[in-house]
């Protein structure tokens, strides 16, 4: 990953954490004084490098892992804001990435009952005994990251 890609990647994460909004290639190009096509190519390289996830066949951002840019069943409250996470792992990753306490609201996929977890000082003070299941083996995680 070269320095321009890192700069773009950092801009995307910084912007998303600041206001919860992803940036189009055109917006990023304008903000960083780069060409739109150059930025679009960088988005695709960052996707290929698993540094973010684009909607298929576009340069529209779907995931800035652990954050989701689309609504999901995993809602996280952290740093005074609401976020969506891509999965259980990412839901706990958002407070970790923001270095803050937080709570997670999800639902059991078997019965649909709400599940609540609460993090304080890095520890789960509520929901620690819930289970997490990985269906997909690690080497296949990125074959279909939305399913994983």
């Amino acid at each position, binding site marked *: *990953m070269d320095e321009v890609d890192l700069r773009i990647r950092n801009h995307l994460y910084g912007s998303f954490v600041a206001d919860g909004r992803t940036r189009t290639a055109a917006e990023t190009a304008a903000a960083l004084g780069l060409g739109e096509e150059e930025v679009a190519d960088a988005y695709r390289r960052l996707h290929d490098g698993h540094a973010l996830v684009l909607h298929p066949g576009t340069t529209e951002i779907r995931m800035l892992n652990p954050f989701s840019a689309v609504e999901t069943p995993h809602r996280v409250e952290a740093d005074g804001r609401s976020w969506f996470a891509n999965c259980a792992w990412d839901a706990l990753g958002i407070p970790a990435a923001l270095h803050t306490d937080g709570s997670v609201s999800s639902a059991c*996929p078997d019965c649909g009952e709400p599940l609540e977890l609460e993090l304080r000082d890095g520890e789960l003070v509520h929901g620690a005994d819930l289970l997490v299941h990985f269906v997909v083996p690690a080497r296949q995680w990125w074959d279909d990251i939305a399913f994983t």
Partner: protein
Amino acid sequence: MVFLRSEEHLGRWLDRNGWEPGATMSAATLNELARLWWWTRVEPDWRPRTPSESQAILGELGLTGDFWRLT
């Protein structure tokens, strides 16, 4: 991956979807993994990890064996 209430709920969910069991851990263990995995993600000096660095994080929590092999 998803949160589930219990082993009973997990078993029913896998059966209903026709999926083979993968790997199960407590939310507490996943939280440890999340902290190690995501801690630096939004920091400006973030750099991509190598596969072996990521594998080492999994190993630190005892997540070893074929299921957890990244490459």
